[in-house]
């Protein structure tokens, strides 16, 4: 299938063009076109994965584009599994959307199709330029889709926020690319395409480690923007203004993981960059924790899931950061969680979409007792919640466990247990917030003001079931049932076939000590215990209502206030972004008024003033003219007399 690899992103692009221009005239607003296109991509992706799986080979195709830039695809194990996940989840969600977005305009299908193309482009790009281009393309689609209901001011505003906040990350990423280029031309002048990943990997050892730290931290900044890492996470909760399917596809399963994928893609550079991985680990752990605390108090079901997404993305970063001790395996662990998260978070979002579809509200305080009316949605969402909480059998258990184990190894290996502890505590919070949401939605008495909710049609429930199935078995299947930690190892070996990516050499450069750390098995049970405790707490509070949650959740409680105001982040962010920027803008406006316009005004007015004054000399009286001549002549004679 590899000869068709180019088609993977191209098919959705055709889908986009066809839907955009013909969709209006086609039945179902042409929603089947993207589905077919993405199905094609999925088939090719899976075919490629099966082809390269046994040998672990790397597909690389490249053509000249312009200047120093080539256009090319790079499919290694990392990209292959990511391709399959992206195209598959995208396909499922597109199918779900046929029903969910019925009658909302063909623009939606076109834009999601374009988004999928962009995301696939991010995955298979073989150079930073193409990567960045696709990266921005998905950002654009995210912007468009968040603002899909642009008549709503909140949607328009959320779209703006999403674009600008991720733009901050993009600019950091760009700076990283520039520095990479600068180092490549300096230390690898013969390289034809200095932005190609393979070229960069080949020359990592030529680049000074501190430069690499700078580059990777800037990359991390870009990743933080896209993947909602603190403090650039603020856009992601607001992004829930978009249709729920968009939240599921873009703001849970695929685009937000692009940042994680970026770190994974350039992992050799991180490994060779001193301190970078430590920063990654801390950033991930801290983000996981802080987002989980905020998720505790949200009443909008989608916002709960949004904070959960941020938190889980933090986990993935934590996994990558633990590569400081466990090496390339970290990539595999992060990708495992990335993919399982894609399944269960897409599932959770689609379930919430199904609920919202039925109840026409987002507020979980107005729901309750829905399980009896929406059995499929309720149980599939339960599976998703269990997976998120990390209960055994589900995919989340295996992937999250692996991360915490890696974090523990990192802690033991480097002597710094703080990231692990933060991650561990987050497990408890995760279980609480997701089951709080589930209990409030599905059990107890219905608090709906009006209307009788019904289960959603089959086009929506079938995807739920498929995703629920994946959430149940995926990680377990690939890891344990087929023997050993097969996925992690397979993806972890992704850089083996590329030149210049020997982990030993790189970690030496980065000053990391890769080692095998023996972990007490008894410690590995801890996350499970915490998860169960968390579910119990949520059950007691929100199912049994003992004690009544209202007694804790009150505006007078300072902790609640802290969380519900999101740590006062809005005033702070507002101050930094709006006040300072607008302050400078108004200052420049003043400078423009006073100095630029003012100087012109003064010059012209001075000219006129002088003109008016001088013309007064022209009195019209001939005697004065004679006087002027006489005086002028006299003065000239006297003046020159003095001068000569």
């Amino acid at each position, binding site marked *: 299938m590899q000869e068709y690899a180019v088609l993977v992103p191209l098919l959705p692009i055709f889908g986009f063009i066809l839907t955009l221009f013909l969709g209006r005239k086609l039945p179902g607003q042409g929603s089947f076109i993207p589905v077919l296109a993405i199905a094609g991509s999925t088939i090719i992706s899976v075919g490629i994965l099966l082809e390269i799986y046994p040998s672990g080979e790397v597909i690389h195709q490249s053509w000249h584009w312009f200047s120093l830039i080539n256009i090319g695809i790079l499919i290694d194990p990392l990209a292959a599994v990511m391709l399959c996940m992206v195209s598959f989840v995208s396909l499922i969600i597109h199918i779900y959307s046929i029903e969910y977005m019925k009658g909302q305009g063909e623009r939606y299908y076109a834009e999601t199709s374009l988004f999928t193309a962009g995301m696939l482009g991010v995955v298979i790009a073989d150079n930073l330029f193409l990567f960045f281009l696709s990266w921005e393309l998905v950002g654009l689609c995210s912007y468009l889709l968040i603002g899909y209901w642009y008549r709503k001011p909140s949607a328009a505003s959320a779209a703006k926020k999403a674009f600008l906040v991720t733009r901050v990350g993009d600019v950091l990423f760009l700076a990283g690319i520039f520095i990479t280029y600068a180092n490549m031309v300096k230390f690898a002048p013969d390289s034809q395409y200095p932005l190609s990943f393979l070229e960069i990997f080949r020359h990592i050892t030529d680049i000074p480690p501190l430069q690499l730290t700078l580059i990777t931290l800037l990359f991390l900044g870009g990743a933080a923007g896209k993947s909602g890492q603190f403090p650039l996470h603020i856009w992601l909760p607001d992004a829930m203004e978009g249709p729920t399917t968009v939240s599921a596809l873009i703001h849970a399963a695929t685009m937000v993981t692009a940042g994680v994928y970026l770190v994974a893609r350039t992992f050799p550079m991180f490994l060779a960059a001193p301190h970078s991985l430590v920063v990654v680990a801390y950033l991930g752990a801290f983000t996981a924790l802080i987002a989980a605390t905020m998720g505790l108090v949200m009443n909008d079901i989608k916002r709960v899931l949004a904070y959960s997404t941020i938190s889980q993305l933090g986990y993935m970063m934590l996994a990558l950061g633990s590569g400081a001790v466990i090496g390339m395996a970290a990539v595999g662990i992060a990708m495992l969680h990335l993919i399982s998260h894609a399944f269960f978070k897409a599932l959770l979002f689609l379930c919430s979409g199904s609920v919202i579809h039925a109840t026409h509200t987002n507020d979980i305080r107005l729901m309750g007792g829905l399980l009896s009316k929406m059995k499929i949605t309720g149980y599939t969402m339960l599976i998703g919640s269990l997976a998120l909480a990390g209960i055994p059998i589900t995919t989340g258990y295996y992937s999250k466990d692996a991360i915490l184990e890696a974090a523990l190894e990192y802690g033991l290996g480097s002597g710094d247990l703080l990231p692990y502890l933060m991650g561990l505590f987050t497990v408890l919070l995760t279980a609480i917030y997701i089951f709080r949401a589930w209990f409030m939605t599905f059990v107890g008495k219905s608090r709906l003001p009006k209307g009788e909710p019904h289960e959603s049609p089959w086009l929506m429930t079938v995807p739920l079931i498929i995703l629920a199935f994946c959430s149940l078995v995926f990680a377990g299947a690939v890891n344990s049932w087929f023997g050993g930690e097969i996925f992690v190892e397979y993806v972890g070996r992704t850089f083996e076939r590329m030149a210049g990516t020997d982990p030993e050499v790189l970690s030496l450069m980065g000053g990391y000590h890769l080692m095998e750390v023996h972990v007490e098995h008894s410690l590995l049970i801890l996350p499970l215990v915490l998860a169960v405790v968390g579910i119990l707490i949520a059950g007691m509070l929100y199912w049994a209502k003992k004690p009544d949650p209202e007694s804790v959740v009150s505006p007078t409680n300072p902790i609640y206030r802290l969380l519900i105001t999101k740590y006062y982040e809005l005033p702070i962010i507002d101050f930094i972004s709006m006040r300072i920027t607008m302050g400078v803008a108004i200052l420049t406006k003043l400078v423009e008024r006073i100095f630029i316009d003012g100087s012109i005004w003064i010059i*012209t007015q001075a*000219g*006129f003033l*002088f*003109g*008016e004054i*001088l*013309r007064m*000399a*022209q009195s*019209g009286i*001939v005697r*004065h*003219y*004679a006087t*002027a*001549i006489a*005086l*002028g*002549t006299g003065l*000239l*004679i006297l003046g*020159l*007399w003095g*001068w*000569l």
Partner: protein
Amino acid sequence: MNVDWILSNYGVLLPEAVLTLFAFAILLIGLKYRSVLGYLAFVGAVVSLGLVIMNFSVNATLLYNSLVFDPLSQFFKVVFLLVTLLTIIASIRYYHGNVHQGEYYFLLLIATVGMMFVASANDLVSLFVAFELGSIATYVLAAFDKDNPRSIEAGFKYFMIGALSSAILLLGMSLLYGITGTTNFTALSQMSFEMSGYTLAALVLIIAGLGFKMALVPFHMWAPDTYQGAPTVVSAMLAAGSKKMGFVAAFKLIILALIALRTEWYMVFAIISVITMTYGNLVALTQRSLKRMLAYSSIAQAGYIAMAFVVVSHTNVDSVVNLAMGGALFYILSHAFMKGGAFLAVGAVGYMLLRDRIKVDVEEDDIDNFAGLSKTAPITAFSLAVFLFALAGIPLTAGFVSKLLIFSSAIYGGLAWLAVIAILNSALSLFYYARVVKVMYWDKPKFVLKGEPTAYVVAVLLALLGTVLLGVYPGPFVDVAMKVAEVFL
């Protein structure tokens, strides 16, 4: 002493002779047939112009070396005759039916003869006599519309200041004569001077006397009043032609004859030139009368031309002198077209206003009257716009090439500061020129004007042709100017 001898020796005088002949003929014929006078004068000027051009590269002296005929003099004669021609064409309409037409054309031709003799003068006496001939005739011309109090006032001021300047000039000449004992330029130019108060006084007095004609500050004050008050055709003649008489006299007397006093006049002209251009431009900014604005603009232009004096006195490198003087000559030629054309275009508008009895008062050249002219009188408006842009030095017009030459000569001569001042002035001047264009092109018309007067249009178009030709295809004309300027080497 047969005819052949006269012709071969005095043949160079033919243009002047023809013109004088025509002038007296007009005076006589004018007693009876008035309608042909303008055409007669036109023919006379054309014949004379033809004769001058035929004899362009002549080199002769006459009357004991008191008159010289060389390319320089012929060049100026061409300029004078061209201006006279334009004036005559426009006057055919302006003075149509006037009972005093005979006197008018007579004076016009005689004034031209005077100017032409100035161009040929090679002696203090001949210069003074020719200068007075040219001046006195124009005093009368300025006051020619004797029913119009403004015209009389213009003539009066012109006369008074002119007479004063003649006296000053004569005093300066007398001092010069006292110092050197000779009146001949050729002799003067070979003289070596001792630096003394007398030479200084003589020099400044001569510059003051000629500065009146050139309208250099502070000897300029008559000019705005006279140009504004005089009949517009006469203003055209004064600004485009008579002013050049001052320049040619100054070139001959100061650059050719008093070259030894170079260092003395360097400072005089540096000061005068800078003050003149700045003053002219600044005051022109706020004018409402178009003729008055053109007058101030004319003063500023004189300042630019006077840069040539500064450059020539600052250096004696041949190529610099050649470029500066060539530039000045080219400027004079193009200024004749631009300024003459501009005055005639303004005159055409004034004529239309008075003819259609839209304005019976005398403010016919107020800028408001030009509002929307592009719609009511397109040819005049377009031409005036071109003249104004040319005066501002916009490319593809004569004004650009003129400024190109004269400003570059300043830099060539190492006077970058002068060029900077001149260029800033040039930018300043754009302001008031552009304002007029603005009024003509995008203000609403106030009056309905019916038909542009043919004679004016012909004159204006001829000037336009000259302005554009010198701008688009300047090569040969520049070559001629540079060739003529070799006289100064």
